[in-house]
């Protein structure tokens, strides 16, 4: 079955496809480093094996190499990112061009014209003025242009597809029913699902990048140092109280979790939602990667509470790839339905079980 998924994240692009029955993920850092196209720049980059793009008098080193060049040269100013807060970076002139090149290089050309690709999109944020329309239109247009049949899906819903949380009602297990949170670099996305149908979605415009900036500000250190320290040493089970960066990271992580749960409470109340059966919460995303994060989330959730019963909170099996895997699952499912329809067969139908909504 040919179909692809792609997680278009603020920090990483993750493509997913099936090859010989196995899932293959392609991960690339969503970044570029700009430098003037001077005499030997191109030769130097070619010899070093870096991936780059030439545009006029500028050279852009892309992906993981961009971070390396930024660190080697000590130049953080020219380390740039096409995405910010979960969408195309409005303050970055080259955002769209760079994103398109990176995206095509990660997902490749379609295996056949009209191959299905599911691309992840954030929900509209509850705490910011912008919406995701432009972001969606640009990326959808580009993927269509290179030959894909594009379906945009909510990134938190992808976690639902990949992790399959369930609810049991009257001894019947309802698949793809629960709540998923994607703690990305730019945003936190949340979706509530009932039998794979999205009931509620929203996003918050702060997440890992916000934490890094806040910590950098209060500790007067560069953001890159905070990021590096976080990735190497942050473990919520063992916070060294003498390490001021780790203490600050812990504080802002907790603040972020409270912020997200607070918004979730509000959204549930606004939706007048009633959930009778305990649901599972699944967490994924790079910001949730530090050990102990999920336990910290559970503790804060227990303290604050939600207007719905929670059965369990668990981490996705692979927090960095769960969203891309979910996009791939949705794409394969879509392709299957399309093939069934074109073969004149009736598409697989849901069981005749009456559809009692979980959230009303």
């Amino acid at each position, binding site marked *: 079955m040919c179909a692809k998924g792609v997680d278009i994240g603020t920090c990483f692009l993750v493509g997913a496809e099936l090859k010989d029955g196995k899932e293959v993920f392609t991960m690339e850092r969503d970044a570029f480093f700009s430098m003037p196209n001077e005499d030997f720049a191109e030769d130097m980059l070619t010899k070093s094996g870096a991936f780059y793009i030439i545009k006029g008098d500028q050279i852009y080193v892309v992906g993981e190499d961009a971070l390396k060049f930024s660190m080697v040269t000590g130049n953080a100013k020219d380390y740039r990112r096409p995405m910010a807060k979960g969408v195309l970076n409005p303050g970055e002139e080259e955002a*769209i061009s760079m994103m398109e090149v990176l995206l095509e290089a990660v997902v490749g050309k379609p295996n056949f014209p009209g191959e299905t690709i599911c691309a992840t999109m954030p929900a509209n944020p509850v705490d910011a003025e912008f919406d995701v329309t*432009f972001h969606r239109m*640009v990326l959808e*247009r580009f993927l269509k242009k290179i030959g894909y049949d594009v379906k945009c899906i909510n990134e938190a819903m992808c976690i639902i597809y990949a992790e399959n949380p369930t609810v049991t009602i009257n001894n019947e297990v309802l698949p793809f029913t629960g709540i998923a949170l994607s703690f990305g670099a730019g945003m936190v996305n949340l979706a509530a699902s009932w039998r794979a149908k999205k009931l509620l979605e929203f996003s918050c415009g702060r997440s890992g990048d916000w934490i890094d900036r806040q910590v950098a500000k209060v500790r007067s250190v560069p953001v890159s140092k905070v990021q590096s320290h976080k990735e190497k040493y942050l473990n919520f089970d063992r916070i060294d109280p003498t390490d001021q960066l780790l203490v600050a990271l812990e504080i802002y992580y907790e603040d972020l979790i409270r912020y997200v749960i607070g918004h979730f409470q509000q959204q549930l109340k606004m939706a007048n939602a009633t959930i009778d059966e305990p649901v599972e919460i699944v967490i994924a995303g790079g910001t949730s990667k530090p050990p102990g994060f999920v336990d910290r989330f559970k503790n804060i959730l227990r303290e604050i509470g939600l207007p719905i019963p929670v059965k369990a909170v668990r981490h996705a099996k692979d927090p960095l790839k769960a969203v891309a895997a979910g996009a*791939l699952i949705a794409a394969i499912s879509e392709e299957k339905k399309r093939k069934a329809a074109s073969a004149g067969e009736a598409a697989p139908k*849901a069981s005749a079980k009456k559809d009692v909504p979980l959230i009303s």
Partner: protein
Amino acid sequence: MWIVKNVLRGSIQIEDLKVKIPAKDYFDLDKIGRERAEQSRQLKLAMEEGYLQNVKKSDPGTNEAVLVKEETRSEIKSKIEELRAAIVKSPDKETVLKAIGDLRGVLAGSKDVEQIRADFDDLKKLVSSMDGDGGWLKKEFEKLRTSFFDKEKDEKTLMKREVLELRKAVLEERGRSQAVLTQFNEFRDTLLKEFKGLLTGLVAAGPRMSATGEGGEAVGERVRMTEVEIKARLKMLDQREKELQANFESIGRKVEGDMGAANQADLLSDLE
């Protein structure tokens, strides 16, 4: 409708019908009566000899003009709402001026000129009631209206004649080439589309230009500008993509996973 064309370089006179058809011109024989025309020996001879060519001969009793008009009106109604939105996306003065110019040309060539007089009057009332910086629009609209209905009859006739000529040419070609017919239909659709779009566009543009800082109007303006911006940016992307030269086709670290995607997809598609 029974249209014939005189393919000769001289005029043909059909005595028994008292009809004279100029060189390379068309004539609707139904004007003198189908039965009478069919009984004409001279006409029969002219057709057999190839002096006259059958361009279109419909079944007697079919009132095609009525059918076409009804179809056109119905199409106008169905398209009005969707085209209103299309016009709103280009609300700048230059676009509206161009729209007025185009509308002028289309109206002058339209057979339904008199039927849209009421729409024109409505538009005039709307434009007249506008405040703010819509003065230029009033001026242009009045100029259009005056030119169209009162003074520039010659221009109107000329343009109308051009359209009719085109229609004739298409009718002539219909028997020979389906491709030309398609072209004509496209042309007709374009005319109709522009006419309807511009008409509704003027209506839509009116209140926007009369905005005097009311809250609701301001929000509407912002939304429209965003759409325009998106459209413009998307258009620019094609150009900008061509400026890039990459030294790679694929990128990224590949890793295999074992998340049971195929099984999950089966479960998902069964459920959906």
